[in-house]
């Protein structure tokens, strides 16, 4: 009984509910129209909706081999991206899922290739791959390449709920955490290894059965009992479960990303500092709250008029909605900054430069991060970053890895969305409406040289290092999957 529902207008919650019952194709179209009508907007809801939809795609579509699954996901992803190309989180999630499917497929394949079912455990193979990649690939930084955690350990660390129900009969190695950027578990940052990803790229050693992507164990293993057909069914079923698990991990990551980022807060915010931030971002908010657990400092909030000022005002008043509960209509508020002991000062965007000399640090939220280290953020961010540059104030950008996009647009203008001019000039002012052309850019592009540090759920990185994270998270063949003309 939807009696608590306040209205009929669809949103993320309605979409999630409809996913359970609606046929797949209409769910896809539903999300497309929601994206077009901006009824699902901003990175996190878009990412969540995309991941939820892809889970349904994997679960409900008919596919017999990996190639078809990948093609299917690519097709859906392409449609979603075309629906709203400026919500880059959509494309990011699609690429993540695609990469994960490829990994799983490769794993199956390598397993088939070395089909000595019981004797060879997964850790050993991982090590072999480590050796392989460490000699071939670019020298990995010690920071990133610290752990070659064995599969069993990983599954322990990650908890049972993630890997529950995937004890496959074939003794497949546990799912590696590479699909997700799990970094903080139980408060301990675990450095993610990238060899997993690299190992998954098809190498001649690993894929003896050829590039076709089909599992053909017969040639190599004539003694194997199962027929090809049976085997394929099993594989696809297993693969399906694996991929769905992987998507669920991504969803978990989306849920936890802010807390993971916040875990780094105390390393970056010191006592009695004055922090300048902009617009209302849950990531930044949680980051500040976490730092306030141990330190006292001052936060100046620029209101980001006209597109986000109301939310910013509410946030400054301590009424920031908790994103996990926002779907429930009523909204549970996060703890207010004041209650956490932070002095909050709200000011207009125009006075940013005036106040910059007193500011110790600028913390910005993002809408999307591009591979060159630049970012797309709420309009006004560039002004702040520029002012900070002049005053030699460090600029820290807080962003989940899911916002990091491998796309590198030809012109950054194309990433900037122009919104409703009614936010600036009231539509009831007929003279202005008739005689003025009012532009209301929603986003700003901030070039990488204005940013000093990125804090993601994986840790802190310099802008120039982001390309590595991009390479870790997305496969090169998926980067331009939505542009067939750019694929080779």
């Amino acid at each position, binding site marked *: 009984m*939807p*009696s608590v529902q*306040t*209205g*009929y*207008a*669809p949103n993320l919650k*309605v979409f999630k509910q409809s996913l359970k019952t609606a*046929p797949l*194709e*209409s769910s*896809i*179209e*539903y999300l*497309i*129209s929601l994206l*077009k*009508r*901006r*009824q699902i907007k901003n990175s996190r809801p878009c990412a969540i909706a995309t991941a939820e939809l892809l889970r349904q795609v994997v679960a409900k579509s008919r596919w017999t081999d990996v190639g078809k699954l990948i093609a299917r996901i690519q097709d859906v992803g392409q449609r979603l991206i*075309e*629906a709203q190309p400026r919500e880059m989180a959509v494309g990011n999630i699609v690429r993540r899922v695609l990469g994960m499917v490829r990994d799983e497929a490769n794993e199956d394949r390598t397993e088939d290739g070395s089909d000595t079912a019981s004797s060879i455990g997964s850790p050993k193979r991982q090590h072999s791959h480590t050796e392989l990649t460490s000699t071939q690939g670019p020298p990995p930084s010690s920071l990133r390449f610290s752990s070659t955690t064995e599969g069993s350990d990983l599954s322990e660390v990650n908890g049972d709920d993630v890997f529950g129900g995937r004890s496959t009969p074939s003794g497949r190695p546990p799912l590696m955490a590479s699909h997700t950027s799990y970094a903080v578990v139980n408060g301990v940052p675990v450095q993610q290894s990238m060899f997993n990803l690299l190992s998954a790229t098809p190498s001649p050693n690993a894929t003896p059965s050829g590039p076709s992507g089909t599992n053909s164990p017969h040639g190599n293993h004539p003694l194997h009992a199962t027929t090809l057909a049976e085997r394929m069914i099993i594989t696809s079923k297993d693969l399906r479960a694996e991929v769905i698990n992987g998507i669920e991990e991504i969803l978990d990551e989306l849920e936890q990303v802010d807390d993971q980022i916040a875990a780094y807060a105390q390393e970056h915010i010191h006592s009695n500092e004055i922090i300048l931030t902009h617009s209302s971002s849950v990531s930044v908010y949680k980051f500040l709250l976490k730092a306030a657990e141990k330190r006292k400092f001052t936060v100046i909030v620029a209101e980001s008029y006209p597109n986000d000022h109301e939310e910013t005002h509410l946030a400054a008043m301590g009424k920031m909605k908790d994103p996990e509960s926002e779907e429930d209509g009523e909204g549970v508020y996060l703890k207010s900054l004041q209650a956490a002991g932070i002095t909050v000062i709200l000011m207009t965007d125009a006075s940013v430069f005036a106040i910059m000399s007193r500011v110790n640090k600028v913390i910005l939220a993002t809408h999307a991060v591009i591979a060159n280290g630049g970012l797309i953020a709420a309009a006004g961010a560039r002004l702040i970053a520029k002012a900070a540059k002049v005053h030699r104030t460090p600029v820290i950008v807080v962003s989940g890895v899911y916002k990091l996009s491998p796309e590198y647009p030809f*012109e950054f*203008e*194309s990433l900037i969305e*122009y*919104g*409703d*001019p*009614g936010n600036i000039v*009231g*539509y*009831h*002012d*007929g*003279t202005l*409406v*008739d005689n003025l*052309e*009012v*532009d*209301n850019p929603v986003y700003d592009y901030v070039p990488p040289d204005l940013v000093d540090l990125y804090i993601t759920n994986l840790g802190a990185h310099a802008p120039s290092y982001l390309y590595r994270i991009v390479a870790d998270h997305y496969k090169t063949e998926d980067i331009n999957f939505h542009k067939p003309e750019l694929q080779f």
Partner: protein
Amino acid sequence: MSHAQKSAKGAGGGGKPVPKSKKGGASGQKKPEDEREETLQAVVLADSFETRFIPFTIETPRCLLPLANTPLIEYTLEFLAMSGVADIYIYCGAHTTEVETYLQTSKWHPSSPASPFISLEIVKTTARSIGDAMRDLDSRDLITGDFLLVHGDLVSNLPIDAALAAHRARRIADKNAIMTMILRAGGLGSHRTKSKGIEPVFVIDPTKNRCLHYEEMHPLQANKYVNIDPELLSTHNEMEIRTDLIDCGIDICTPDVLALWAESFDYEVPRRHFLHGVLKDYELNGKTIHTEIVEEHYAARVFNLQSYESVSKDVLGRWTYPLVPDSNLIAGQSYKFERGGLCKENGVILARTCKAGKRTVLGKDTSIGDGSVISNSIIGRRCQIGKNVLINDSYIWDDVAVGDGTTVNRAIIANEVVIGKKCKLQPGSLISYGVRIADNKDIKSGSRITRAKRKVDDYDSEDISFEAVPSDPLIVGEGGEGYAYDNEEDSDDEASAFHSNLIYSTAHLNISSESISTLRSDISADTPTETPRSRTSSFVSVSDDGEAGSSNEGFHKDAVAGLLDALRKGEDFDGAKLEFMGLRLSNNATDHQMRRAIVVAFTKYISELVEKESLGASEAAKKAFSAPGAVKFLNEQAVGLEKEEDDQVDFLICLQKDLVHRNNGAVVLAAVCQQLYQVEVIEEEGFMKWWNDAEKLGDEEDGEMKNVRERTQVFIDWLQEAEEDDSSEEESD
């Protein structure tokens, strides 16, 4: 509760022959506490049963006309999808099949996986007005709960949840709160999206958001007053009278609304009839109608060509965001918004030296030649724009070819039009489907050119079939195709005078009350230097109303016919007078219109007598005025018993004006003047004033007007002499 009420009303109204009892039973089963329905229903009135988009709507249904290259109904359905509507009923009038085909292949049809609607039904109807459609809807028993009533030309990005919740709360509190209208505040100043010409006046009780009174005002009406029931003033402490609201036609209705429609057979349009009527009969039915005035977001209707232009501008200015071209609402669109406000699809070919400027939309595969400049315009798909073409503020649909060196200014050009080289399209041109215009043509401002076969008019022949109209080389040039569409017979009500043109202006209209008032003011102001000029203007407007046939044409025709009939039969005038008064009241005709009608009737009769019975002019006039009751009638109606000078002068001007067109007008005028003087309808002062005013015009006076009154000179001289005699006699006394 409300359902019980409804069924009772339905039975009481007795207007519905179909399943009254069944409906009552069906709604009676619903438990009253089931206050919220599972799904939201909407009724889309895809046809407005008007002809404001002529000539385009001859060939296409109005709701499929493209606005920013997207059919209008897409915006409406997008709005409904945005609001979470589940069931939709679409009422179409003309071109139902086309709408049906379009919707069946669109993403909205429930068979498409993309459809957000559970059901979408196109209701076939023979309705000839919105009222008919509503009554039909009532009889079909489709509506189970609250529903949204919108027009098929609505463009809105308004979240409707708040208004719905408010409506629901009101309805639970009071079952008589049957309807909530959503109105957009439009500010006090002029606004391009506000309805021009016809101005809706809402009287609202702001404490309860209740609409108390509704009226529409327009420049043609004689009195500029809103009549508010004094009762309202005593029962409401606060009251707002607002004319600043943009009526976007979104109504949240309960089924009771349909019952009310069903009760009143004469209601045709939702506002002027239904709203006005229901509010007026509040004492009778006890129903209240509420308003929800929104200050944010966009909501407007494309109800005529002017609003087509203004809403197009709003779309280009992104006021309707996210319903903008680069949202690519229809599958297959690929618009991208570029720096500088240019929005184009893939495959557009722009020559290196052309300028496609701000606020411009270009459809797929359109090419623009060297040196062309395009600004503030929308161009559809597959258009060929030649070299050195200037396009400003224009709306060009698909597959149009524009030749080199042509200038298009503020025009609408429909699909598959070919425009030759070095043409000039003046502002306000409307070029309909498939027209071809030869080279070097100058299309006049405000012209409508079509190629459509037209229904043969009754005065042309008895045939009712459609016939192709030969092209008019004067308009489209040698080798062109198309003819100027003449829409006079289509102006079903005076309001259409405001709506039928792309560019709003009252210049072509007879603002009758204004012309009278200028006359009055300059007489009273007594400023001789200015008099000639303003008199000319009043003359011009008077002369206009003979030809433009704009204001209250219906009244004029009927009244003249009635009076003429009475004169011919020689009947007593009392009957004619009664009929005349009835006509006058029902049409809300002004004094001036009335006089004009009387004058025309008399002069027609007199010239008939002169021509057919070859009577002399004075005899004819005598005969005309000797009809029983005629003098009394003239005294009462034409001039008024008070014998106001101004009224007399106006009467004479009408007379003079009308006689310009008639044979022997001058002779007749002289004769009539004499008769009028003799029967004491017009007094000396009136004649003198009229004459002097006309004399003062000097050279500025229309030549014809002057010729007509030439013969009356004798009569006036005689009058003057008589007067002088009088006064000299008085002096000598």
